[in-house]
Each structure stands twice: as structure tokens, then as C-alpha cells.
């Protein structure tokens, strides 16, 4: 948003915030250790603002909880900003020196009075004002968000709204002050940094920018394509349309993780050729033409980059089982079959090659991160790493305000599908469960899928905890156990997506955000019916 996609601060800085604004992140369950740091900050006197449609565990530690209706984050944030402008809690110096476009942006907030905010979001105007005062008066505030913000058809607009809030209050570029998207997987930051995205080479260097492609052509000694590629969600569609004929999937399980499972399976079946490289026979591998056995994290050397841009050392501890090989060796061997030599002596050579092509990594080597990680940018070998970003300036010069307007989710509850379904993770299982569901003790505490239903809705549906219900959307149907819970609001239900036997993503919507191409996994309409005869 300000020039690179990453957390602006580091994890140890969390405990020094005076205000923490968590929106669309169930931090204690999805990022438990960052959750601990937040609790520590609260113990040290920080106040916590939680905006979440569910009464997540963090609410217990909060000064104010904004229970917005799913998909109304823009209206909520805009009305908070409306109050901040009205009460003159903006940072004029910061706005003048480091941003542009404030005047027209300010106009866009006029309509979002706290009353209008209350009407759209369901959050009381008093709470909106309270949150605005808390954040507006903060000295070292941090905003934290995850997929609750991004997995919407207006996900990019949600992120813009968060950026606007931080910019207008000058809350960027200082220690313990910033905007922090928490990345959900151990190395999602590293994968993005390394250019596993269709429109950027490594280090966010745009494929279409003049000079960039030439730089990589020179480095790799080969002609490169100048057309940006397709995102994962677009590839699924292209496969269905027959435009993509072959897919090579390394360490992913899109059948369970992507929206509308039937659609994903259809698309993968339509392929002429599917290679799946993984550590387990996943639901996706079941559809493959070739399955390659890979090594897991404990069986290889390399680095992971955590959500705070910290490059940390991963070390080989055990040998992979059977004939399983490290992913890197598999890729190198396969490249040989195409007559391309990608061999390296030690895996650090690969990291060094990346450092040569992206200055932010140039100062990092394995010796420097032997004990503690380093946070990029780290351009030289004596650079200490960068705990927080944007001190003094943004990479693109001035940051721009982007006015955004509230627009509803793609699919809203109606007469036929009266409940709004949100999906996510819970504490014990991880993502599609291919790892944690094979860990016996974890499976024992968290054995089966459930749907969280508000007590009043449960009464209306005439279901009790432990009953089975049939949940249907326009895309599919699953049967699942009821968990009566005060966590979701009335009319909203929640299903964790870890369980293949009641996969939440059978139900979800494939509608995409037009800019980031992220699917709207956090909101779709469903119908719930009681299953009369208990299955098995």
C-alpha cells in the first residue's frame, strides 16, 4: 500500500503500543504468539480496539469491541475517520509533508457520520466515536489485520481505508507505530518476496516495468516473457475454460483452501496434466497425474521469512522418509530435463543469487542469521536490518490517500439463503489440516467440523449443540455438527475450513476482488436445515 506488502513493524515492538487496533484478525487463534504480545501490551497499559463480527477471545482484553456486520469494514473505518476529522485529531504536519490527496479524500468522508456508520455496520455510534478518540489520540498505535479484511470482493478497498486511517493520523514510520497485515503462513512473506506472484519478480519488481525484465534476462541468461501471468484464482478459471492445460502445484492444497470446492475439482480434472509435489497425499494430489514426494521443514536447510519481514534460518534435523526429496532438488533435476542448469553447491548459493537481484536482501547471509533473524531491507553486510519501515520517507515518495466508498459483499443473505457464512481457522488445526489432522493429540481435542450458530438462531432452527445440520449455499451442501455459541452475531454463522469431511469451501463464493484477485471467503449466503435422522 505504501510501496511494499509487509508488516511495517516488528513483533517485539507490539508490547510498546499504547493503542492496538485489531480488525478482521482472530489473532490469539491464528497468530497465537503475536496474540501473547498484544496481551502483554494490554497488561502494560495499552488499550485494545477489536473490530470483528465474532466475539473472539481478544474481546476479553479490549476497551471497545466493534461488532460490525461482515463486509462493512469500509463504512466502519470511514465513520471512524469522519470523527477523527471532525474532532481535528489529524496530523497536519505529516499530511502536508508526506502525503498527497488529502483534500479530496476528506470530502469523501463527509457522508460517513457515526449515525450512518451505525446504520450500515450495526456498531453503535458511541462505540465508533470511542474508537475514533482512542486511535486519534494515540501516541504509538498499531493496526493489525488479516484475512478478515482482505478476503472480500472489496478487500483492496478495506486495505485502502486502513492505510488512510494511519496516514491521516501520521501513525507510520515510527517505532511501535504502523500498519501490520499478519501473514497466515510460515513463509508466505518469503514466497511473495521471492517473486512467486504473477506480476512481480523477486522483491516486488514489476514484470512490465521497463528495464526490469532485461535485468533478469541478463542475470538468468535466458529470454523472459513480458506478459504478466495469472493469479491462482484466475488459473483455476482458466483451467475450467481450457486455457490452462497443465498445472504444477508444489505444497498447496487448493481443493480444500480455495472457494467453491466443486468448481476447483472440476477445474483440476479438466487439466491435461497435473503435477502435485507434497509431503502428504492431499485432496489435490488425488487428482494429479504425477505425485512427487517432498521433504518437510525439518528435513531441509534454508530460510523462512516471517510476517514481520524477518529472514530466519531453517535447519535440517532429520532425513526425509523413503525416496522423498527436498523441493529444491526436485526443481533443479527437472530443469536439467529441459536443458537448463540450475544446480547449486549449497542452498545458500540460491539465497545469495536472490540477494544479488534484490538489494533489500543483499546484506543477509546465513552466518549473520545463524542465531537471530534479520529484517529486510538489509542492503549491506554491516546493516542491522530494519525493524520498522518508512522512517522519514515512503519508497514511492509521498503516500497517496485513496477515497473508498462502502459497497456490499457480492452475495448477501436473502429469503432463500438467510444466513451469512464466514470461514476461518481455529486454534488447534492448521489450514487444510493435511499436517495437523495427522497429529493424533490435536485430532483428539479438535476431532470434527462444526458450525457456530448464535443461540437465538439455534432456537429458531430448533437445533441443539451436537445436532447435525445441512448447510447449503448456491454452490454446494455439507452436513456438519452444531456448536451453539455466543461468538457470532445473530444471523451470522462460522465454519472452520480445516475439515475435508465437511469442507467449508464447498459453500464459499468465488467472486474476486477486482484488483488483488482475492476471493470473498469471508462472506457468502447459506441456508441451514436440521437433519432429522442423525447420520451414522
Amino acid at each position, binding site marked *: 500500500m505504501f510501496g511494499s506488502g509487509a508488516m511495517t513493524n516488528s513483533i517485539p515492538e507490539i508490547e510498546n503500543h499504547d493503542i492496538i487496533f485489531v480488525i478482521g484478525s482472530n489473532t490469539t487463534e491464528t*497468530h*497465537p*504468539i*503475536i496474540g501473547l504480545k498484544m496481551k*502483554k501490551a494490554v497488561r502494560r497499559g495499552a488499550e485494545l480496539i477489536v473490530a470483528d463480527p465474532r466475539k473472539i477471545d481478544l474481546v476479553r482484553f479490549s476497551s471497545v469491541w466493534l461488532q460490525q456486520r461482515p463486509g462493512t469494514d469500509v463504512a466502519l473505518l470511514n465513520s471512524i475517520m469522519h470523527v477523527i476529522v471532525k474532532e481535528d485529531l489529524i496530523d497536519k504536519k505529516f499530511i502536508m509533508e508526506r502525503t498527497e490527496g488529502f483534500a479530496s479524500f476528506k470530502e469523501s468522508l463527509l457522508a460517513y457520520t457515526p449515525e450512518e456508520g451505525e446504520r450500515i455496520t450495526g456498531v453503535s455510534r458511541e462505540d465508533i466515536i470511542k474508537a475514533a478518540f482512542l486511535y486519534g489520540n494515540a501516541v504509538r498505535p498499531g493496526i493489525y489485520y488479516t484475512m478478515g479484511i482482505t478476503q472480500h470482493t472489496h478487500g483492496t478497498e478495506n486495505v485502502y481505508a486502513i492505510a488512510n486511517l494511519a496516514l491521516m493520523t501520521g501513525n507510520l514510520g515510527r517505532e511501535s507505530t504502523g500498519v501490520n497485515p499478519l501473514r497466515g503462513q*510460515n*513463509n*508466505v512473506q518469503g514466497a511473495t518476496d*521471492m*517473486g512467486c506472484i*504473477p*506480476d512481480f519478480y*523477486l522483491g516486488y519488481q514489476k514484470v512490465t516495468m521497463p528495464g526490469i525484465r532485461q535485468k*533478469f534476462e541478463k542475470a*538468468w541468461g*535466458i529470454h*523472459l*516473457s513480458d506478459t*504478466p*501471468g495469472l493469479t491462482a484464482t484466475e*488459473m483455476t478459471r482458466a483451467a475450467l475454460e481450457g*486455457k*490452462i492445460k*497443465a*498445472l*504444477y502445484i*508444489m505444497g498447496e492444497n487448493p481443493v480444500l483452501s480455495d472457494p467453491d470446492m466443486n468448481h476447483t*475439482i472440476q477445474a483440476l480434472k479438466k487439466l491435461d496434466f497435473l503435477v502435485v509435489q507434497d509431503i502428504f*497425499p492431499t485432496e489435490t494430489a488425488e487428482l*494429479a497425474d504425477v*505425485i512427487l514426494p517432498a521433504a518437510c521443514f*525439518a528435513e531441509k536447510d*534454508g530460510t523462512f521469512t516471517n510476517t514481520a519481514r524477518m529472514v530466519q534460518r531453517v*535447519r*535440517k534435523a532429520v532425513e526425509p522418509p*523413503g525416496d522423498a*526429496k527436498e*523441493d529444491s532438488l526436485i526443481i533443479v533435476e*527437472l530443469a536439467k530435463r*529441459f536443458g537448463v542448469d*540450475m544446480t547449486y553447491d549449497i542452498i545458500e548459493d*540460491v*539465497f545469495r*543469487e536472490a540477494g544479488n537481484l534484490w538489494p533489500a536482501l543483499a546484506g543477509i547471509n546465513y552466518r549473520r542469521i545463524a542465531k537471530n533473524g534479520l529484517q529486510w531491507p538489509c542492503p549491506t553486510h554491516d546493516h542491522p536490518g530494519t525493524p520498522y519501515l518508512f522512517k522519514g520517507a515512503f519508497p514511492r515518495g509521498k503516500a497517496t490517500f485513496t477515497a473508498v466508498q462502502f459497497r456490499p459483499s457480492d452475495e448477501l443473505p436473502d429469503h432463500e439463503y438467510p444466513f451469512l457464512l464466514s470461514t476461518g481457522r481455529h*486454534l*488447534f488445526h492448521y489450514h487444510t489440516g493435511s*499436517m495437523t489432522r495427522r497429529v493424533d493429540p*490435536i*485430532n483428539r*481435542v479438535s*476431532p*470434527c467440523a462444526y458450525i457456530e450458530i448464535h443461540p437465538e438462531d439455534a432456537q429458531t432452527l430448533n437445533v441443539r449443540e451436537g445436532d*447435525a445440520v445441512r448447510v447449503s449455499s448456491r454452490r454446494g451442501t*455439507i452436513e456438519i*455438527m452444531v456448536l451453539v455459541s455466543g461468538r457470532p452475531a445473530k444471523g451470522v454463522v462460522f465454519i472452520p475450513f480445516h475439515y475435508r*469431511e465437511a*469442507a467449508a469451501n*464447498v459453500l464459499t463464493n468465488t467472486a474476486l476482488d477486482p484488483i488483488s484477485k*482475492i476471493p470473498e471467503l469471508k462472506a457468502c449466503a447459506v441456508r441451514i436445515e436440521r437433519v432429522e435422522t442423525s*447420520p451414522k
Partner: protein
Amino acid sequence: MVTLKIDGQKVTVRKLSTILDAVRKLDIPIPTLCHHPELSPFGGCRLCLVEINGSPKPVASCTTFARNGMDVTTTSPRLEKLRKTTLELILSDHPKDCMVCERAGDCKLQELAYFYGIRENRFGGEQRVYEKKDNNPFIARDMEKCILCGQCVRICDEIQGVGAIDFAYRGLRTKICPPFENDLNCEFCGQCVAVCPTGALTGKMWDQKGRQNFKEVDTVCPYCGCGCNITLHIWRNEVRRVSSKEETLNEGWLCAKGRFGYGFIHSPDRLKKPLIRTAPKDISAFPIHQTNPPLPPFTKGGRGGIHPSSFSLHPLSSFKEVSWDEAFDYIANRLKQIKENYGPDAIGGLSSARCTSEENYLFQKFFRAVIGTNNIDHCARY
């Protein structure tokens, strides 16, 4: 700032520091069982007693603030006698089963008994006997070994913010337990196991998996994006325990997945050979309208759901095992064919946020430089 003298050495510490903080700053060894630098002072074990010049009684250094001009002695015949007696009292109702205790060799109490040379105990008397309530799959609680240092209670409340356990009853009957002495039902982060100074709390999955000769390898947790530093304890090519060191990014704290979720590494389900499809992709092979058995979850007291032993994913009957050479040749030929017929943009690659950065770099390079397409993405959006 406060300046005081400890064993004749001058030391300056911040205001509101305890004498123990000052002692630790000078790196003088002083035994403690209930102290933890991240937790509120407790003053329970009485081992950190020190003498202050001018004060008639020894005081617990962990609960006494350092003051200007204090003259502190950390060791003397009288203090050591007191410490030894305290230890003997703690050990008087402690089970003497170090030979089978999971923590032997890594037990603070055992180490102190060793240093103070306590084998026979002058104090006899009643032993505490507790009924084990241990239906949870992660944490073994042997409360007869508990010395009531309260670290687990404080960490659960102060760091984890859960408060699943507390002291109950009084005197000899005092014990630490969940409300109403129910079975433990919490977040199972295992922070309590990490701080327990004795064998009262241990990981169930470590049981009889060895206490000595582990190779320790420092690495990074493979689950969420926090990037917690973990140490794998390896015994003969097997990960047998996971721990985390205090001086790490995550201060030694982990969650249930990070601490106890390593079993997948050696799962019998791991893929071990390259496989090539022999049977056509069959719709019935993957029943997606399968029902979910609505058995009560663990929290309701049962052991319901899918039983681990019966939990195995799809059979791979439509595949045959091949050698790596066969697999590579097959993939290369098919991809070349498709590239020739439809162009490089008919091929796509999905990389993995679970793999290392180096592997991701190589994967995108393979697609861009070898296949010749920018159709490369990963699961950042899910």
C-alpha cells in the same frame, strides 16, 4: 537508579528492581524454584533468601526491592543451612522416583538436591496422593511431584491470559488444578510445561521417548507466520520433542501446534515414492458430499469424532510407484508437449508458502526461465 553492595561488589540497578535482579546482574548463582523473570514475584520457595546487613531476619531476594546502600550477603553457613532445610522439606513429600521421571536430568529440584547432597531425608510424614485426571492428550499432570511454586498458575494467567488453573485447598492438601478439579481443558499451549521446575507437568507425547543424548537443532516453526524459533530434539533420525529457548523472538512461548503438533513429520501417511496415475480420474474416488459424524467433541467429555487410528486419507490405488528418473522424464515430456502445442502460457505453477524462500525462488525461476511463463502464484490469498 539504585546502588547497593552484594557480597562486597557494588552494583547499580533500575528503581523498583528486586535484590534478585541485582544478584542476577552480577551473575551470582542463587537457587530459585518459583522465580521467572517474566512473571510477577511470588516468594514461595524461600530458596533465594539473603541476609541484609542490619536486618535481623533473612529475606526472600525475589520479593524485596533493592535500596540504596544495602549491603547484601547471598551465601553464608546460616543461609546454606536454611536453604538445605527448605529443600529437605520440599523433598519430604516428593515422590522419590527420579529413575522413571520424565524430567530427570532436566529437573531443577533434582539438581538442587544433587548440589546440596540430599539423599536421606530427616523429615518423614504424610505423602500427598492424588487421583490422576488426565484425559487430555497433551499435558501429563503428576501433581504429587508438584512443589507449589505457582509458575504454571502465573504463566497461564499473566502471559497466556487464560487462567485455566489455580491453587485450591490449604496446607498439605494444597494443589493446583482446574476449576472444580475438572480435567484440564484449555488452549494447551504448554507454557506451564515449559516453566515447571519438576516433573509435575510434562508432555504426554514425550513419555518414555528418552531423556538423554538428544541432538538439538534450532529451526523455525512450520505453522503460522509468527516465525517462532523452535528447537527440535532428535533421537536417531526422529523428532521426539519440541521446545523453544527463552532468548528467542517468541521468548520461549509457543502454541499447541508449535509445541505439540510435530507428529506429522513421521506420519506413516508421508509420501515416500514418486507416483504416476494408472487409472482415470474417477469422480467417485473423492466423495465430497460425505457426511460429518456428529459425535461429541473432546470438550464435551467424550473422545468422539474421527478416531486417530481410523483416520487415514484417500487410498492411492489409482497410482503406481515409479523411480525418480521415470517421474522426471514423464513430467518433462508432458510439459514440453503442452508447451509446444499450446504455448508456455498454457502452463501454470502454484508455489508454496510452506516451502523455504530458496525453494520458492527456484520454483519461480523454473517457471519464468525454463517454462517461459509468468503464470506463477502461491496461496497468499487464502
